[in-house]
């Protein structure tokens, strides 16, 4: 081995980097970008999970254990109590319901509609039962334990765990600080969605969206950089093919690629991991198709800012990291720090993951995920329109 030759190769490599200023910038800024975004998102914990509470506990005021637990839950920060349903017409939260079943029913319907992650119900005699259980410690119980039922949307396993954990812990803390002992208290979990769902059920829709997004974006940006550098794009535009036709043709093809890929993931997930698909698989595929078409457009637009495949690849992390970290693929948006949460709502993948998860775990139909689908259709339409317009511009 001759060192002068090794040095010659090394020098040539560094020199060619020097000629590509953007790459030099990328090499410096990319790690900065990565450590910042990873640091912020990994540092975050779940908070502000929307819940509703039904307080049927008959003792009120200072003596009410339910009120005490509720106050602690509000103070905790993990849960955000949107509404408290009360039976007593004298109180502020009175909603006109005359029986317990109707009250619980309307709270649970908020969970069913996706407005709240959980409905926490303190049953009647909660305070009385807790006090009785404390007295009974060490002897035969004379009555049932104090009971709380959490009607929960377990389509997001991270959130479900956080809610259940928070309720159990808070009840224990409040009772222990009041009575200095811990009597049996029942915190029952009743799943509104995600009956029997495990982490993989929560995970699969996210991975599907992410995979479809990565592949369509990558194929699109690389294909178009190639089309531009080899002159085929110019050539296509000297045929009667219009800009719109070219862009739509690509969107169709890459949307289908996303579809095939999602089908593979779906089938594998069901076969190997018994992932449940409660809703329509076709609706899931529709969502993925639209996501794929939109990412094709995004890839196209960015391709006009890349001179070669190497520069195209640099766009990958810039687009991918926010999607991976902020779109609710691995952890819920509720765990994204406040600073970055607005960004989550600008990441199209967020809506695809939410849509797929709602269909697969909650069993929602087109009427329930129309918003997510509409956002994705809008994203795709804008991207494809901009692509066609940018093709019209000639040097």
């Amino acid at each position: 081995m001759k060192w002068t030759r090794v040095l010659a190769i090394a020098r040539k490599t560094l020199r060619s980097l020097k000629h590509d200023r953007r790459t030099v910038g990328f090499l410096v800024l990319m790690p900065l970008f990565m450590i910042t975004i990873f640091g912020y998102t990994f540092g975050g914990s779940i908070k502000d999970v929307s819940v509703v509470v039904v307080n049927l506990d008959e003792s009120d005021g200072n003596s009410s254990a339910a009120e005490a637990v509720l106050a602690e839950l509000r103070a905790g920060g993990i849960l955000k109590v949107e509404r408290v349903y009360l039976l007593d017409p004298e109180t502020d939260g009175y909603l006109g319901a005359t029986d317990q079943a109707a009250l619980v029913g309307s709270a649970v319907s908020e969970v069913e509609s996706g407005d709240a992650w959980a409905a926490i119900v303190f049953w009647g005699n909660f305070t009385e039962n807790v006090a009785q259980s404390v007295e009974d410690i060490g002897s035969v119980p004379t009555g049932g334990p104090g009971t709380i039922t959490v009607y929960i949307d377990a389509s997001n396993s991270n959130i479900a765990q956080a809610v259940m954990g928070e309720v159990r812990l808070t009840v224990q803390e409040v009772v222990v600080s009041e009575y200095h002992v811990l009597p049996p208290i029942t915190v029952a979990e009743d799943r509104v969605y995600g009956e029997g769902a495990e982490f993989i059920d929560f995970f699969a829709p996210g991975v599907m969206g992410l995979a479809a997004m990565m592949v369509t974006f990558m194929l699109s940006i690389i294909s178009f950089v190639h089309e531009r550098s080899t002159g085929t794009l110019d050539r296509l535009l000297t045929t009667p093919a219009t800009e719109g036709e070219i862009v739509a043709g690509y969107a169709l093809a890459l949307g289908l690629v996303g579809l095939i890929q999602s089908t593979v993931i779906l089938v594998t997930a069901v076969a190997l991991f018994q992932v449940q698909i409660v809703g329509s698989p076709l609706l899931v595929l529709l969502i993925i198709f639209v996501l794929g078409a939109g990412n094709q457009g995004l890839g196209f637009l960015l391709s006009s800012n890349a001179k070669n495949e190497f520069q195209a690849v640099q766009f990958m992390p810039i687009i991918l990291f926010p999607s991976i970290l902020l779109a609710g693929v691995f952890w819920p948006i509720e765990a994204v720090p406040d600073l970055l949460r607005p960004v989550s709502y600008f990441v199209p993948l967020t809506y695809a993951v939410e849509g797929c998860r709602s269909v697969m775990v909650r069993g929602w139909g087109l009427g329930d995920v129309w918003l997510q689908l509409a956002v994705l259709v809008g994203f795709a339409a804008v991207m494809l329109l901009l692509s066609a317009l940018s093709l019209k511009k000639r040097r």
Partner: protein
Amino acid sequence: MKTSKGVKRRRVEKDGDAVVATKLRKEFGGLVAVSGLDLSIPKGTLYGMIGPNGSGKTTAIKMIVGRLRQTSGGARVLGEDSPLSARLADIGYMPQEMAIYTDLTVSENLQLFGSLYSMEREAYIKREEALLSMVDLSERRDSLVSQLSGGMKHRASLACAMIHDPEVLFLDEPTVGVDPELRVGFWQNFADLKARGKTIIITTHYMDEASRCDIVGMMRQGKLIAEGRPEELMERTSTSNLEDAFLEYSWRDSV
């Protein structure tokens, strides 16, 4: 309306032009690539554009077919101003960089262009057969373009530009890397096309090839320094071949 005979005749001539360029100019930053190019190429002409690298041939053609925006001036093809839309179906363009899909087979490339020109299935099949034998790629129709030699790629690219039998054919250096024997075949084909009334504009730096053209335009530093029939050009410069004629015109231009 009364018009004089002369005016009328000139108009008829203009209608007979396949390609017209008027004061066509292109600057890239401060660099002038084409400076005030005037062309009028009658239908049914085999027109050769010759000149060294960087003389503006490719830039001129790109502006005429509408892939580059001119800085000033204008171009018309078959009566339509560039950038073309309605007339795109009537032109064929083979860029210098070949511009075919290397990850497709020869036949798949041809099918793509056939479909983009909305060709009928039967007409397409016939045409594909004829073109593949013309460019001598019948045996390699199912080979990926990336596996072909440089010359073969050029021939495949030429076939793609001709699939729809266009009225006007723009060929940017079509014979680079094509061996001499096949090149003779190519020129025979161009002559046949011309006989059928097609217009062909070819750029080349093979001077011997240019002598096969009806009209030769010599380009230097973005402008036309001479134009005429090959024998005229040689006669006017008292030279015996186009290469010497070009050198003579270049010298006159630089003085």
